[in-house]
Structure formats: structure tokens, C-alpha cells
């Protein structure tokens, strides 16, 4: 596993799946947790790793927290490179799984 690729565990794949479901959309950590059913203890380490290797990017909400009446959300979005490499990884994985299943 290089520095430019995260460990593709089942949980990581789940997170990637949510991010790639609508690549143009930004989703918060709580929304990803709700869709993946991952606990916060697992989720945020995966998100940080994806961000560090450049597969995902994040930003704070631009709205003022005082006007929102709640803490700002951190919004995540998959990057172009991340989407391509994630797709390739999904493809490799599915083909490996297919060969394994075929044999």
C-alpha cells in the first residue's frame, strides 16, 4: 500500500461508495455515517486517510455558525483523481472477486 492509496477495507469501500454515488455533491460526516452505518470511531479515520491521499477533499460550510444556530459541518467530496482511482480499484476488486468466484 503506497502513500497515494488507502487501505481498501470494506468500511473504506462503503465510504467511497457514498462519495461516488453523487460525485458532484458534498456530504457531511454525519450524513456519510447515516448512509454507511459506520460508527464515528471508524468513519473519521477513513475520511482523514482519503483526504490525505487526495481521493477526497473537504471544506467547512460557508455559513456563519451563529446564524445557523449549530456548529459548522465539514463537507466531503470525492476528487476527480480519487473517483478515477476508486473506480479502478472497484474494477480490480470486482474482477478479482469474479475470478475467485468463477474458479
Amino acid at each position, binding site marked *: 500500500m503506497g502513500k497515494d492509496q488507502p487501505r481498501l477495507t470494506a468500511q473504506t469501500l462503503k465510504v467511497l461508495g457514498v462519495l461516488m454515488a453523487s460525485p458532484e455533491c458534498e456530504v*457531511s*460526516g*454525519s*450524513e456519510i*455515517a447515516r448512509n454507511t452505518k459506520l*460508527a*464515528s*470511531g*471508524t*468513519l*473519521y*479515520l477513513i475520511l*482523514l*486517510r482519503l483526504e490525505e491521499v487526495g481521493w477526497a477533499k473537504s471544506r*467547512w460550510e460557508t455559513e456563519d455558525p451563529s446564524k445557523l444556530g*449549530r*456548529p*459548522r*459541518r*465539514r463537507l466531503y467530496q470525492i476528487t476527480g483523481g480519487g473517483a478515477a482511482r476508486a473506480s479502478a480499484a472497484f474494477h480490480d476488486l470486482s474482477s478479482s472477486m469474479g475470478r475467485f468466484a468463477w474458479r
Partner: protein
Amino acid sequence: MAVIVAVVIFLLGIVAAAASRLLADEFKAWIPWTVDRLIRRAVGRLPADRRERLNEEWRSHVNDVPGEVGKLAVALGTLLAAGRVRADCYGRRFDGVLSRFLEIVSYAAYLIVGYAALVVLGVAFFILAAIPLRILLPWILVIAIAALGTVISARQDRVLRMPRLYLFYVALAGSIQLIQYIQGPRAVEAYWAFELVDSFLLCLMSLELVYRLIPLVATIVSAIGACILASILTGLRQGLGASTAMIDLEINLRTLIIMGILLSGLLLSRRGWDEWPRESKRVFCGVCLLTLSGTIISAVWFSNLLGNRWIWQFFCQVSTVPGLLYLMLASRDSYSQGRINLKRQGGDPELRTEVKISPLLPDLFGEAIRKAKEEGFLLWPDVTALTTNFDEINKQESRRNPNKSHMTFTATDLANALYSGQAKRADKSSDGSGWLLDISGPSTDAILLNVCLFMPFNGPLVFTSFSPMLEPCLL
């Protein structure tokens, strides 16, 4: 009976319902506080560069979760997340969590062992510095110190022979044995006079060595130990996720503390506390205060850096403890060579001396002195000459400080003056006015006893009167 039981059950049910409602409300009321504490604790476990971001992000996540129990579950999850993020961060920094774990364990082991060694060394040095004349040293240590003395004496073309070595040993062990030694051959014989006087100088030099060197060595050991521990702690702190800027700041502060300890130790090793000018004492106290303040500030920094891990704070602070402990102990005059105060007693500043011995002396040496007298050894009452060059010293001191009411000399100064022949004979003053020699300090006893015992063979020396405490056993 059944009716009563039914009523009781009914009432208990009402109470239980009310209580459960109360408990539930109470539980619900405490959840926001609990969530806040959990997140705060989780954030505290994170590496410093991740704290701000994840703090807000986790609070936002908790806010998005419906229901109080759900919030609590997410908050508990952040604790787990913090541990994983931290482990992941360290794992990448040191190529694996395992190596990082081993590194921290080894650092902690070094720290514990190093600190224990420093404490042992510090206590040992203090004991040696405080009571070298009161204990019987192991022969191997005596040989080692005497060998060091041989190096010095060899420079002066002196040969260390067994009687001198023995004399040195008994001088370190206490003057009682010295007296017992010279009970045998009569000191009036020229050979023994020569031996004793030379040995006295050797003893004197060796005592100088012990009293000047030990505090210096203790300080250097403490400073080096503190530096080593500080470097170990640097690695430990980096592993614990403190930011580089804070670490640098803390290390700089610690360096200043170590420098303060070193400087103070050097100053202390030059002269005893008693002998310091008042200004120097003030400066020294200022340095100690700064050192203490620096340590407190440092502790606060650690508190910020390391959160509530008090055990790490404790270990991180111990590196300066030996140095501070030494400073505290060394500031006492226990290792000082003692003090001779020359006080003006009356209108006649001429040469009348009075010797006051530490109260310990009669207790420790009284019996030996009495026994020596019974053996016919030449002792204090037999010495009839007065020795001093203090009038010249007094004139110099008076020019420097006209208002000074007394003068301070070390016992070594006195012995040097006597031995080098600078002392001169003088008559007793009949009116009781003159000078008062006030001698105190544990090591002074032995030095003074050496002076009194050896000087009769080398030159004139008299002490016209003694402190009342000593008189019954001597006069």
C-alpha cells in the same frame, strides 16, 4: 394480608414510576454535559494539528444526530476515533504503531531508570558533601580520593607514604582517630613533627578538594542528567503529539533552567554559603526563584500540551528535580568549610583571640581529647604563643567596608596563614578586649582540631580562652 401486599406493591409501583421518570429526566439533563466532556476528552487525545478541526466536526456530527442516546453513542465513538487517528498518525510518523509503542516504552524506561539514578547520585553526593568527616569511609573510596591527592602532591614533589595516607583517612573519618594515632610517638620528636605537618597540608588539600569538588561534580552530574532526560523527553513529547513550536519553547525554557542550576552550582562550589557576600546571596536567591518559576511555567505548559495525562506530566518534570533538590540542599552551609568570624570586642583591637567551637565538638571529640591529655600529648593548654595575621586582614577589610562589625575567614584561610608562617607571635591582652574567633560548621571542627594539633610543631599558636562548652573538658 393480601390486600396489604397489593397496596404496598401499588404504592411501590407509583414511587418507582415517579422515580424512573425523575431518573430519566436527570439522565437526559446530564447527557449534553456528558457529550461535551467526552468530545473534549477525545479531542485532547488527538495530535495537536487535528484537534481544532475534529472538535468542531464532531460537535457538528453530534448535533446532527437525533435523540439524546444517539448523541451519547456518537460522542463515545469519538473517543475511539481519537485513539485510532492518533495511532494512525504516530504509525505513519514512525513507520508503524508497534515501533512507536516500543519507542515510548523505551523512553519511559530510560526516564525511570535515569531519574532513579540521578536521585541516588544526588542523595549520595549530598551525604558525602554534608558529612564526610563524620563517617568512616570505605577503604576503596579512601584509596581513590587519596590517589587523587597523590596526583596533586606529586606536582609539588611530594611522596605519599603510608602514614600520610592513614592520616588522610583519619582526617576524613574524624579527628578522634587522628588523636589516637598521635598518642603513640611523641610529637616533640622532629621526625614526627615533619611528618605531621606535611600530612596536615596533604589533609588540608584533600579536604579542600572534597569540599570544593563534590558540589561541582554534583552540579555537573545533575545538569548533564537533566540534559539527557530533556532530550529523551523531547522524543517522548513529539510522540505524544505536541506541536513543534511548543516543544521548542519548552526546551528553551528547560535549557535556561539547567543553565541556572549549573551557574548556581558553580558559584556554590567556589565558596560556601556562609562566605558569600550579601549581594551574591541575593543574586543566587533570584536565580533560584527564576528556576522555580520556570519549572512552574514549564509544568503549566505540559499541562496544556499533554492534557490530563498527569503521569506524563510527572515524568516530564522530574528531569529538573535533581538539580533543584541539589540547589536546595547546597544552599545550606552543611558542606561549607566553616566560618571564622573575627569580631571586635572592645576598644582595643589588638590581638586577643577566643575560640568558640561548635557544640558538637566536645560531644564527639571531648573524650578523645581528654584521653590524649592523659597520655601526655601536647595539647591546647600547653601552647603559649598567639598567632594571627588578622590585624593586617582587618585593616584591608576595614578599608573596604568601614561599617563592618565582624570579619569572616574560612578555617582553611586560617590554616594556610598559620602554615605558611604568616602568623606572628603576640602577647595576651589583659583587659579582655580584642578579637573573637567564632568557629562553626561541621567540617571546621576537624580542620580546627588539625590546626591546633599540628601547629605546635610548626609555629606559634595560642588560643587564650575557649568557649564555656569546651572548657570543662579541655582546661
